């Protein structure tokens, strides 16, 4: 008995973790998946109803706006964060004075919650007293900046705040990547007559492929889950012009008593994340097995 216990102790120790994750992650996702095929309203009902909720979802104007916004946000958020991240990492890698201090300034936003970030930017972007007034006071008398209350432009305010919060982290990832490159490679290229732009464009950036990949996964993941930032900045408004899937899901579930529909929207989000994550995990695991 004691021998058996000793032999199986490691498995016994991790059994609770496996059990909890099986139940609270996989079990719950299966439950949501099942509910998305029922006609649940305020409470879950268990008789199957077919794909009605998915039909309803993709026929809903609000959901289509949410998906549209998600695409706009993801593309801009991804591209701008990576461009700023790469640029700042390269600039900071030029043996800068006070690098630690500058890095701290670039990175601190990631310590703040999206609610705090959203609250701050909501005030900065305030259509009367914010940026607009600042520029008017600086002498640009006809300057207007009303993106926050403009249906067409409000989604871009979320991009502005999101980029501010997350681009420093991407910089840190790239900086770590740059630091792991052997200096000899750069020296050798310089001796061969390559200038700095060629060294970065042709040699170093291509070597950063894994970091690009990691950044891509992290940023897409953040953007699909975006919820807090929208709540704090626009609440999905004006109207429903800045709705996103995560907001759609919680509103359907907890404000509109459309449990079945919200489960269907949650499953769509899950599939979008899985489509990005599973290839990533697969490639990471393979890389690890190779090395």
């Amino acid at each position, binding site marked *: 008995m004691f021998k058996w216990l000793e032999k199986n102790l490691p498995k016994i120790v991790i059994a609770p973790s496996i059990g909890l994750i099986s139940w609270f*992650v996989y079990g719950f996702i299966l439950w949501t998946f099942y509910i998305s095929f029922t006609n649940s309203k305020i409470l879950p009902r268990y008789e199957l109803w077919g794909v009605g909720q998915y039909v309803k979802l993709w026929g809903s104007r609000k959901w289509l706006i949410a998906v549209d916004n998600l695409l706009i946000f993801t593309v801009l958020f991804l591209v701008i964060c990576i461009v700023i991240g790469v640029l700042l990492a390269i600039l900071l890698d030029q043996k800068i004075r006070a690098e630690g201090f500058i890095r701290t*300034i670039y990175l601190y936003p990631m310590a*703040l919650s999206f609610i705090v970030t959203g609250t701050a930017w909501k005030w900065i972007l305030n259509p009367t007293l*914010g940026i607009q007034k600042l520029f008017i006071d600086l002498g640009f008398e006809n300057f207007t900046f009303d993106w926050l209350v403009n249906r067409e432009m409000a989604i871009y305010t979320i991009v502005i705040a999101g980029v501010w919060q997350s681009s420093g982290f991407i910089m840190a990832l790239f900086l770590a990547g740059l630091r792991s490159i052997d200096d000899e490679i750069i020296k050798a290229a310089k001796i061969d007559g390559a200038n700095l732009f060629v060294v970065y464009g042709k040699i170093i950036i291509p070597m950063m492929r894994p970091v690009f990949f990691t950044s891509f996964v992290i940023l897409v993941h953040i953007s699909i*889950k975006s919820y*807090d930032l929208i709540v704090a900045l626009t609440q999905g408004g004006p109207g429903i012009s800045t709705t996103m899937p995560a907001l759609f899901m919680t509103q359907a579930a907890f404000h509109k008593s459309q449990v079945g529909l919200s489960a269907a929207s949650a499953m769509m989000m899950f599939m979008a994340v899985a489509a990005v994550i599973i290839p990533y995990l697969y490639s*990471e695991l393979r890389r690890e097995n190779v090395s």
Partner: protein
Amino acid sequence: MSASNSLNYKKLEDKSRIKNLFLRYFLYIILGLFAFYFIFPLYVMLVTSFKTMEEIRQGNLLTLPSQLNIDSWLVAWGGRGYGAGDTYLRPFFWNSTKMVVPATIFSTFIGAMTGYVLTKWRFKGDNWVFLFLLFGCFIPYQAILLPMARTLGVLGISNSIFGLIVVHSIYGIPFTTLFFRNYYVSIPNELIKAARIDGAGFFKIFFKILLPISAPIIVVTVIWQFTQIWNDFLFGATFSFGEAAPIQVALNNMVLSSTSVKEYNVDMASAIIAGFPTLIVYVLAGKYFIRGLTSGAVKG
């Protein structure tokens, strides 16, 4: 001839030095502009929080307050002193504290044990178990929100700090396991083997050998969990309301539900209070966090 040659050479050298100097200045200007972009919101938050509403209407985002007016800070933290509808952050700050400390400790400890087993007591299929747990890092929580709300209700712990501790501890396990697993992988197995030959058992090896050398990854994990849990809004807003809400939910309610006139100075003071603990942790220990996170924890 040779004199003019050396003169030409010197000219060329000067030119390249001037060009380098110019590039150098250009570099610092760009870095400075970005530093301004990142620091600007914090500056605006700070100066706004010390202004009176009159000063806010008269001036603009950049103008300094005429004097350090701490009224809005007092209101944000302790309220105005009247009964109904007076929301302020103090009780919610303590709610979050009571939530973040146990949840961080539990999830870190579970992650450490799991990471230890997955790397030092390997068994058939352990990599699959790791992958199975790892996937939990990436799921959109919307997919578990509905059943979690019902489960908390059934257990009788919805709308309580205890319920949020449970939720954060569970969904923290995949991250903490990832961190510890990737750290312990790099620790030589010979160390463990030698200890086993000396007769050390499962727990003794963990507490006497691995834990004392785990400081770097404990720092990363604790900062990560602390930041995630303190900054969480989705779980807090979904599973709690009223008095049991964590601080991010309270901040959002305060900012959204202004009764009469919008008080931006109180909003900004509240936002700084809600962001203060994570900011301090980051400023004090961020260096170790970034170092640990980028040296393998995320990249795998």
